């Protein structure tokens, strides 16, 4: 086991890692930027080292400063957390070259799964279901029509160089596809100077279904079942839950096992999440693999009893996974909401500044992962998430009610947070009946937006 771990991150995930290290008897060194000076989580580390000014690219993203901090503190391993450099294979390489273990996958495994083309190739090998479509830009429209017939309508035409919803056309039949390719090409050429378009299966009413996996350096890989993260706004997750409600158990087991097989094939050690979209028929299509521990990992911890962060540190230190697939069982239901310092009534404007009131909820099955407290001044330089509230209960209904209760107990002020928003989302009929899809929050926000 490592003697000392350097944590190259901040806020709630830094605190999460400190907690696991503490239980493993590992010393912690936390880097921080001058904007994070006085951050409450730093008090919990054995040592804190200032590595740069506020802007992330001058501090948390500065590889040489993080390595320098590891050198002067004589750390033996570096934990990247999530975001920042956690999926940067160059950083993983530099860590190892400098003599520090990187708590995460090898650069090769990171590359194998982090690159979408490589990942898809491996997924085909392991039977992990992928998005069917044309691999490259369409040269021949007839070819595209053939592909569309194979993958079945509806399909979506997308600009290779595109973004912002432009150069995209949904087609439900051949006529629409031919017309769509033409107009998408024109729009793409005008908007991006590149008329290249490709065709992919389009999922209506899809749900976001991601599988948590964990592997070790001895070839073992296990899945820890799934999380449903369909409640999103602008591709940012708001609510995450496990297990995914209403999914056929056989289909679930099959896709979860295929995710573990993918991790195993890539010789991946550490925590990884394989993201899928699930259609109305409960067929799955892989979106990508996140080669790091994720924000919403606590949801899985609550239903399986596995400490994902601790296990990740253990496997990085060379230990074998302390469990096999048959040891993993789902117990009850868990839901997490992200508490963001944002004003939902003002287009989610980020709130920086002093938290004066902070009164945390409690009670059975209530977990709060947060670095904030009364007297903490939220700096403006980083993302707006100030904590995660996770609730566990024997079933989904009880879990929702318990979470609503916890949100009502939770007082943060005067900064505005997304607490009132979560209370509303949890009561939406689509959410309660689990008939929601990845656009349902945005649709609801649009419908309920004040008419100007």
């Amino acid at each position, binding site marked *: 086991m490592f003697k000392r771990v350097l944590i190259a991150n901040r806020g709630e995930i830094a605190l999460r890692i400190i907690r696991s290290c503490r239980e493993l008897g590992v010393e912690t060194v936390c880097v921080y930027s001058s904007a994070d000076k006085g951050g409450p989580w730093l008090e919990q580390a054995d040592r804190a*080292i*200032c*590595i*740069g000014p506020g802007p992330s690219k001058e501090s948390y993203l500065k590889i*040489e*400063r993080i*390595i320098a901090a590891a050198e*002067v*503190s004589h750390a033996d391993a570096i934990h990247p957390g999530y975001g920042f450099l956690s999926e940067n294979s160059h950083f993983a390489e530099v860590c190892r070259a*400098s003599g520090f273990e990187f708590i995460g996958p090898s650069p090769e495994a990171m590359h194998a799964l982090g690159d979408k083309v490589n990942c898809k190739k491996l997924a085909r090998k392991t039977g992990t279901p992928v998005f069917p479509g044309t691999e490259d830009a369409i040269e021949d429209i007839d070819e595209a029509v053939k592909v569309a017939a194979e993958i079945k309508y509806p399909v979506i035409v997308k600009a290779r160089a595109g973004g912002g919803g432009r150069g995209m056309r949904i087609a439900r039949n051949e006529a629409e596809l031919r017309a769509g390719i033409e107009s998408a090409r024109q729009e793409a050429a005008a908007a991006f100077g590149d008329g290249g378009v490709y065709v992919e299966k389009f999922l209506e009413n899809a749900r976001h279904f991601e599988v948590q996996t964990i592997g070790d350096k001895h070839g073992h890989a296990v899945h820890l079942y799934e999380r449903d993260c369909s409640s999103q706004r602008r591709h940012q997750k708001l609510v995450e839950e496990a297990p995914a409600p209403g999914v056929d158990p056989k289909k679930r087991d099959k896709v979860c096992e295929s995710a573990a097989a993918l991790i195993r094939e890539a010789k991946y050690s550490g925590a990884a999440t394989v993201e899928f979209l699930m259609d109305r028929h409960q067929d799955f299509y892989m979106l990508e693999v996140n080669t790091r521990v994720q924000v919403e990992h606590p949801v899985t911890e609550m239903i399986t009893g596995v400490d994902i962060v601790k296990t990740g540190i253990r496997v990085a230190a060379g230990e074998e996974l302390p469990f096999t697939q048959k040891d993993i069982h789902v117990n009850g239901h868990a839901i997490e909401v992200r508490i963001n310092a944002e004003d939902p009534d003002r287009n989610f404007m980020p709130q920086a500044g002093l938290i004066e009131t902070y009164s945390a909820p409690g009670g059975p099955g209530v977990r709060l992962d947060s670095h904030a407290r009364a007297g903490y001044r939220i700096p403006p330089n980083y993302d707006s998430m100030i904590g995660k509230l996770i609730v566990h209960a024997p079933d989904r209904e009880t879990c929702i009610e318990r979470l609503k209760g916890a949100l009502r107990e939770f007082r943060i002020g005067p900064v505005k947070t997304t607490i009132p928003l979560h209370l509303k989302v949890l009561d939406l009929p689509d959410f309660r009946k689990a008939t929601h899809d990845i656009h349902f929050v945005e649709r609801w926000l649009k419908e309920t937006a004040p008419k100007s």
Partner: protein
Amino acid sequence: MIDIRKLKELVRLMTTSELTELDLRDKDEQVTIRRASPQVAPQIIHHAAPAVHHVPAAAPAAPAAAAAAPAAPAAPAEDAGLVAIESPMVGTFYASPSPDKPHFVTAGGQVGPNSVVCLVEAMKIFNEIKAERSGTIVKVLVQSGQAVEFGQPLFMIKPS
């Protein structure tokens, strides 16, 4: 008798502030708390017998010391008019180009903006740190082999 709770409070004050020295006396005892460097926890030097006369400004109980302390310590008063040269990076500080050579600068030495005042080593690369301003070095705050972090004061300089 200065009791343990007050001592604990004084140590806490030291740790949570930027004080480098706190000197507390009453008619029976004198307590001096001095911080050697930012990485080292404050040390308590406790004298049982009265060494000096009663000093009213620094006098009594913890709450008053808390109010008096910011005005009392000698260090900030001496630092009036001085500017710190701070480390722009994380690494190991070296006062001289190599162990056998003389220090780049010493107290009393003159520097210009491009004068190299020290080296900070990280990832096997020795970086020359420049003074960035003209003046006289008044204090050297760190020693060779010591770890320094971003923003840590290395020297106090009297600008000219």
